[in-house]
């Protein structure tokens, strides 16, 4: 019967696939993005309707952690940024300037750190659980915590309102 013959080949194919998947050396490959940066978006209230917010692009952004080298230097056209949090301490503070002429703000993030063994190929990454985030209010109006757990770079964790 043709169906039975095809089933036999399907069965053999599955066996081969199972054997191959069981045999790969997974210490050699890291098949995922393991960066756990705080993913930040910029928003401002829609003129005439302040209850609604819209994504915005800032003119010339400069960011660096206090007493550290710059992360972003006078970069134009940013609608958001990804900030690495301090792996050694439970607080990170950043100098944040939205425009070269604007007054700078200080962004502060307080969090708990949790090392996490992702896989044989990726090793250990640091997960963060943000307790609170705040800012001085020169240009930044408020800081919204959108997602507390930072385990991936793919979701928006913090929204800065202007």
């Amino acid at each position, binding site marked *: 019967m043709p169906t039975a013959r095809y089933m036999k080949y399907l069965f053999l194919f599955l066996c081969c696939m199972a*054997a191959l998947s069981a045999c790969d050396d997974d210490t050699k490959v890291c098949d995922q993005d393991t960066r756990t940066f705080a993913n930040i978006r910029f928003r401002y209230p829609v003129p005439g309707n302040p209850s609604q917010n819209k994504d915005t692009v800032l003119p010339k952004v400069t960011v660096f952690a206090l007493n550290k080298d710059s992360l972003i230097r006078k970069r134009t056209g940013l609608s958001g940024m990804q900030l690495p949090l301090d792996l050694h301490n439970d607080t990170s503070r950043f100098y944040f300037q939205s425009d070269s002429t604007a007054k700078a703000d200080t962004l502060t993030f307080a969090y708990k750190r949790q090392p996490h063994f992702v896989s044989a190929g990726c090793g250990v990454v640091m997960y963060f659980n943000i307790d609170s985030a705040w800012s001085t209010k020169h240009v930044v109006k408020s800081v919204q915590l959108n997602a507390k757990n930072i385990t991936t770079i793919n979701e928006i964790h913090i929204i800065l309102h202007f």
Partner: protein
Amino acid sequence: MKFTLSSIFSACFLLIACCAVAQDKGAAAPQDKKKDSAKALVVEVPAGLRIGTDLSRIAMHFFQPYRTDATITLDARYRDRIFFASDISWNRTSHSDTLYNYKGNGMAISLGVNYNLLKKQVPKENFMLFAGMKYGFALFNYELPNYEVPGSYWGDFRGSLASSTKTAHWIEVSVGMKVEVLKNFYLGWSIQDRLLLTKKISKGDYPPMVIPGFGKGNKGNVFDMQYTVSYLLPMWKVKQKMSLP
């Protein structure tokens, strides 16, 4: 991606199992017609304990050098088509690279039943096409003596995980076959799908690289295969039904 592959395998595995049952039922119909003419015969055939080893565990070390495994397979015929089956596994895992060192070892045992899907027509024929289910239990320990989280901006973070002892439980379904190539000497292969019951091990912050007898520790569902050589120690006799044409 790997989770998706695993799910596809699981789905296909179940599909094949269902088709096998369906074909078995389909095949039963014409045999029913022949029932009147076929003579049902019960004969006593030698049975006993079959002891073997899984050769794929030895080969695995060449593909995954950080793993050293050994598995002893046991099965004993209980009734005509029912076999009690058990696997006893040992694993040692050791890996070292620039990001982390890992050490682990442990033992596992799985116990269950295999059902022979083949109807016998010749008393001395000892081929076996089986489907089975087992419960597995592992006791193991592992540690990360040192690891490093790379941080290009803030500097690398270095830490360690002390040795800890864990247990794991799983359910395993399998299909496979065993063929008697010499008297009492068998070759066989099977594929298994294992479902981890202690999910918090795979979902925790430090999942083990390998759970002995189960497979990758960060997966809740793993596919595996065995290639066994085994020897039957005839110890008792079992009554076997045979339908002679």
